[in-house]
């Protein structure tokens, strides 16, 4: 009987140890499944282009604008390719940035400097820094790839009347500026509505709100507006994306060092 009790207690303590692990596994599987569904719903756009306007707000209420164009190419079995062409401020006009994201390797990045007519390779670590003095980092603006994170579903919750999955995602990239992110994804269309970015000290660094979603080609949802608020310094940046074009015939040849040099 003592033995029985002893066995029972072992079984009990084992179950205490094992069951949260099982639940954690389930939460991870569910998180990963949500991410995969999100990505698979966004497959097949082939190529896209859009005009981007950034409005930088200082805490004192001053506004500064940046304009650029973004070209993207969907790549099968690897990360997407993108080119960003800067139109303002005037002194950076003609500067262009080329990026190849990779699922299981560091991204490849190049910057074209028109004054020197020089293409410079950028060390892959340079992704956590501010983009053009804004509250967005290069990392925040690069394409979402399932393989770049670990996932955990936390709970379901409503945001602005939309029922959302709340998923914690942890960057695998050691050069990421974040320890983790919490993403609110709406259950009807798998669109990210809100993201909280956490720093190494586990406090919220920035909050991104994605809104004014528009449906393109009857399949692809794109936010016309994104607002990043820096919780640390009170500054914020709004990004407006306009004039989206899909499947306009861009190919690999439009994403090379040569095309970067002649990007206008």
């Amino acid at each position, binding site marked *: 009987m003592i033995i029985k009790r002893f066995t029972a207690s072992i079984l009990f303590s084992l179950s205490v140890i094992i069951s949260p692990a099982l639940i954690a596994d389930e939460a991870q599987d569910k998180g990963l499944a949500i991410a995969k569904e999100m990505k698979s719903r966004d497959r097949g756009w082939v190529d896209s282009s859009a005009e981007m306007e950034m409005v*930088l707000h*200082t805490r004192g209420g001053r506004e*500064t*604008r940046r304009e650029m164009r973004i070209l993207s190419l969907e790549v099968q079995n690897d990360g997407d390719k993108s080119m960003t062409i800067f139109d*303002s*401020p*005037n*002194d*950076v*006009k*003609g500067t262009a940035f080329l990026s190849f994201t990779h699922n299981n*390797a*560091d991204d*490849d990045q190049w910057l074209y400097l028109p004054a*020197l*007519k*020089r293409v410079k*390779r950028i*060390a*892959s*670590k*340079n992704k*956590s*820094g*501010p983009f*053009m*003095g804004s509250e967005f980092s290069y990392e925040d603006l690069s394409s979402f790839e399932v393989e770049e994170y670990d996932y955990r579903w936390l709970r379901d919750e409503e945001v602005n009347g939309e029922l959302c999955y709340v998923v914690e995602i942890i960057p695998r990239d050691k*050069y990421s*500026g974040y320890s983790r992110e919490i993403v609110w994804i709406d259950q009807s269309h798998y669109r990210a509505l809100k993201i909280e970015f956490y720093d190494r000290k586990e406090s919220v660094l920035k909050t991104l709100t994605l809104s004014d979603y528009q449906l393109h080609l009857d399949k692809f949802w794109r936010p016309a507006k994104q607002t990043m608020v820096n919780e640390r310094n009170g500054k914020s940046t709004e990004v407006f994306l306009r004039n989206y074009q899909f499947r306009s015939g861009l190919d690999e*040849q439009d994403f*090379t*060092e*040569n095309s970067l040099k*002649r990007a*206008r």
Partner: protein
Amino acid sequence: MNVKLCAGAMLASLIASLSHAEFLGYVGVQARAFPSTAADPAQGSETLSGVLSPEWYQQWNDGDDSFNIKAFYRYDSQDDERSHADLREFYWQHVGNSWELTVGVNTIFWGVTESQHLVDIINQTDFVEAPDGEDKLGQPMIHYASIQDWGVVDVFVLPTFREREFAGKEGRLRSIPITLNDAEQYQSDRKEEHIDYALRWSHYLGDWNVGLSWFNGTSREPLYLPRATAAGIALIPHYALIEQSGIDAQYVSGDWLWKLEAIYRRSIGHSLADNYAASTAGFEYTLTGINSLFWDLGLLLEYSYDSRPRPNASPFQNDIFVGGRLSLNDIASSEILFGYSQDVDDQDSRSAFMEASTRIGDSTRVTAEVFHFHGDDSLDPIYSLRRDSYIEIGLEYYY
């Protein structure tokens, strides 16, 4: 009247069919002061100058064809030779399926290192503009590029040579004795009409960038020959015929960028030029987010070697360069670039520079620049510049 209307409508539709076009550029003013007394009493000690650089381009045929113009004019209050105009770009470009053809005047950059640009040879350097050698004169060319899976092959035919311009009598940053403009000599009987050729293969493979290049023609770097004139001894530039083979490579790993450039230059025929080899190798290491304001600091270290003895060797014949690039990542895109070069053989031969800039408002940049030169050996190429250290502040308006 119908004809007029018709022509008007045709013109309107033509303009509408021309896609992207833009007019841009900048104007600026700079004030430069030289704190040390000049080596030659004729040289001034401060200068005010203005710069104008308009640019225009027009694309048509869905962007497959384009026409590009970039003009440059500088007025300098001290030195008539530094007041100069140049057509940096004036070319038509056609982009085909995996090829490009460019005809006209253009500027081409090759290479990866920061302290000097050894493999870069297509364009003449505009040394009256700045002593760092980053400004180039426009080069007439026919340039065909073939873009393949195994790399890019560039073929250049360069029909006209651009001679280097030298600072005038009143100007600083020149040789002592003075180098004469419009007195150049050529090894080739065809002089500046000699047709030069260049080839380059470059490829990107994951973390590697590699380029192999070859040039045959008139050297962009002259030799300096003494000549007696009514006003005393002067130098005249002599342009030899050379063949240059070059390699440049870059490897990126995390926050490290490893860089290498090397050339071998061979003189052709009965030449005054030496055969020699030169190389620059080093790295750039980036520290990101060094403070709570997310500043980035890129650290540079490069070593340069040139097989020629003084005085023919470049200033970088056995030199260590250390430098840094501080990016403030702020709204004003503030940046500071600085560097220090030390000759390993000659402790007294060194130079240093600092360039800083920040934006005011939406379209204006304020710049500050300091160059320092030090040399005690009269055979050292830096020796002529030893009294020409300077400070410059400037304002540029972009449109």
